[in-house]
């Protein structure tokens, strides 16, 4: 086995794995982004008439929209190739089938049954490539009475219970301010494919995997589901969700407080009496430490409303970053509520670990990308290619990889197959 290497000379562990990537939007591309970062050859198959929806989603470079100008798309699709293909044309379907025959994995996140309509369900794929690994990511999965329902990230997280679990009690859910569950479903997609590859290494066989995005969210509510199944206790009850306070009121203070400046906030968790003493000292409120209302964790929980008012008064004068460092040096868990600007420009931890890396894009220029969240001793990830221009690799894939002749290529081009 020969591995490709990144620019630091580290082997890319997923070298040699080829993926037919029929996914779009966020969840599926999240799965294949991980594979592409770690060295797999991800061939993103798009139809020119309706390319990946995120190509049309802001933000755009320089504020100018364009099919190759979305920063959101660039971020999700780095290190991948693009094959534009009209699979409704017989030649396009032929190309797709030939591509499957030389690939390891086929992944899609269409509504369930789309691939079946194309005549490409798992059984048909196996006829083309006997050990193919097929992953489908859909809203409700490929079985069950709601299999034809469709979801996007926000609706899937609403259904899963995750939206409800965020916010103040007796208020609208504040939910997730974005499609958190698209990332999460994407992570389960990656875990599933890696498991299937390990099994193929051992047994020489591929398999078919069915993921429901809603169920990946439900898996994260498991403790609360058990509370209902075992104790009959519903999450939907007075006091839930707990806002920013500790669930089940186990410690206090546990909250987010305003600091000085525009929209600056700090999270603080004090988990025992020792930390409470240190916390009071750092914020110059020894009086609170001595106050009988707050001397034990139990009392701090009981008197949380008064305590939070005191802390709101004190902390609003602090610089959030300075206070975080002072508290952390004393062993108290505290963190600035960082927005994207903070993370990119002033987070010294991310900077020190070279988390953000730059890649040049042929049309829009050089931009920063978030890296892979783990460091390995003997392997690495790559950050060397920006997202592909729509269809930029069509010709080379069809002729060099699949061996089509020039005359076929010309005919297909004139009939707009790619």
């Amino acid at each position, binding site marked *: 086995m020969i591995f490709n290497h990144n620019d630091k000379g580290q082997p890319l562990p997923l070298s040699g794995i080829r993926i037919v990537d029929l996914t779009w939007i966020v969840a599926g591309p999240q799965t294949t982004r991980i594979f592409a970062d770690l060295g797999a050859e991800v061939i993103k198959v798009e139809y020119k008439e309706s390319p990946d929806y995120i190509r049309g989603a802001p933000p755009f470079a320089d504020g100018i929209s364009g099919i190759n100008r979305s920063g959101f798309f660039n971020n999700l699709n780095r290190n991948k190739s693009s094959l534009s293909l009209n699979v409704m044309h017989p030649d396009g379907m032929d190309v797709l089938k030939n591509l499957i025959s030389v690939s390891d994995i086929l992944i899609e996140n269409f509504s369930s049954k789309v691939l079946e309509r194309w005549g490409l369900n798992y059984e048909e794929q196996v006829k083309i490539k006997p050990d193919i690994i097929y992953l489908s990511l859909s809203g409700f999965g490929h079985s069950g009475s709601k299999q034809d329902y469709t979801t996007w990230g926000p*609706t899937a997280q609403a259904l899963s219970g*995750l939206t409800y679990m965020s916010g103040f009690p007796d208020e609208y859910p504040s*939910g997730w*301010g*974005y499609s958190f569950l698209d990332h999460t479903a994407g992570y389960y997609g990656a875990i599933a494919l890696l498991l299937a590859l390990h099994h193929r290494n051992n047994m020489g066989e591929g398999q078919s995997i069915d993921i429901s995005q809603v169920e990946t969210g439900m898996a994260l509510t498991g403790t609360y589901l058990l509370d209902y199944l*075992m104790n009959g206790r519903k999450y939907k009850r007075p006091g839930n969700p707990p806002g920013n306070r500790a669930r089940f009121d186990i410690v206090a203070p546990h909250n987010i*407080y305003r600091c000085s400046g525009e929209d600056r906030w700090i999270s603080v*968790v004090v988990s025992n009496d020792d930390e409470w003493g240190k916390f009071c000292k750092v914020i110059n409120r020894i009086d609170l430490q001595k106050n009988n209302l707050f001397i034990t964790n139990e009392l701090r929980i009981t008197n949380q409303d008064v305590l939070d008012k005191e802390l709101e008064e004190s902390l609003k004068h602090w610089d959030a970053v300075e206070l975080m460092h002072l508290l952390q040096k004393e062993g108290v868990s505290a963190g600035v509520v960082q927005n994207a600007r903070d993370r990119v420009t002033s987070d010294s931890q991310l900077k020190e670990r070279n988390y953000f890396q730059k890649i040049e894009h042929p049309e829009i220029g050089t931009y920063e990308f978030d890296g892979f969240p783990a460091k*390995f001793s*003997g392997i690495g990830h790559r950050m060397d290619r920006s997202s592909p221009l729509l269809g930029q690799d069509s010709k080379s894939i069809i002729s060099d990889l699949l061996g089509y002749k020039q005359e076929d290529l010309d005919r297909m081009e004139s009939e707009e197959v790619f």
Partner: protein
Amino acid sequence: MINQAYALNDVVVLDLTDEKGVYTGKLLADMGATVIRIEPLSGNKTRLIGPFFMDNVTEESSLYDWYHNTSKKSITLDISTEKGIEILKELCVKADILLESFDNDYLEKMGLTYQEISKRNSKLIWTAITGFGKTGPYSNYKTTDLVALSLGGPVASCGYDHLPGNPPMCPDGWAGYYTGSHYATISTLVALLYRDMTNEGQYIDVSIHEAISSSTEAALPMYIYQNAVPLRQTGRHHSINPTPPAIYKCKDGGMIHVFGTPPQDLKRWAMLLEWIQESQDASELLTPKYEEMVTIRNREPDLMFTLFSYIGHLINSLDTEYVFNRAQSIGLPWGLIRSPEDNVADNHFWERGFFVDISRENEDTPLYFPGAPYIFNKTPWRIHAPTPQLGQDNNEIYKHMLNFTDSDIEKLKTNKII
């Protein structure tokens, strides 16, 4: 060739994690790995996280612990002693994967280093899960789920625009730790695949902070490409410019999350308008100006807010289930906002096997657990055993893995090593 009914039948994992990484071992165990929790004699502190079965607070009744430790085994070992560390090293020699989430290089300080142990077992994969990673200025900072989600970015995107002055919100449910565990699982499996090919082990440094920072969707691109920090909006996507409310109350008190609207094609647009017209006069929506919302994705705020006020009226006048099913029947990806337990009543998830009965053969009453996050056709996900009691597998593991005799074990028990 080995015979593998489950994807990870050939893998032995030592699990020393606390709540930061406990889910990682579950994901591996439910796919067939032999995962051995190594606990202090008093039990892992996850055993004290509520809620508890029948509200009985014991180290065997935490539902949090039950959910996150299915399919695992448990042994006790006091690794704060020299003898304990020596035994841990022997286990490392026999294992494939070590999972740990200690702060401040605890294991290294106790004398167990990757450098040394990899000489005795060069195939070992050691996955270290920490708040901020093993290097950098925050490497000794103390994380909590609240602080992790604050520094990593999600909290800055979640909150209330209809309640001005309120803090950003942190979603309940350990989502920060889950995200770290998802990346820990992905990284561990990637190292396992690399080992399949090379027989080489790996040291992996997983940063929860970086994992969360990679899971904030368009927030980073918005800053990187447009120098913009999005607004927090109640229960819906963060956005540079305000968008209409997405959550609407129904007649029966339930709530619907509206998304994917206006739809992308005129057929569904017509069906939506027809439905709106059933409850109110909406003739202004039947004009070409509004049709542009579909044909050229016109998102002028006036048009959006007007459309959504009609949709709000429509939803207010109907019951939740009806709105959800009717919207889905015309291809609108709206979701109803469920509390976790609401999904227990949805047959769809029982039909797919999300809930499984894990009672033993001789037990009369079923014991239902959530939940398969994926369905594999060859190597099924499965809860192989309920959560182990503290130290229940001492005899089996110490005898069979390390060839200890009964008297060895008795002696270790007397000396409070196990």
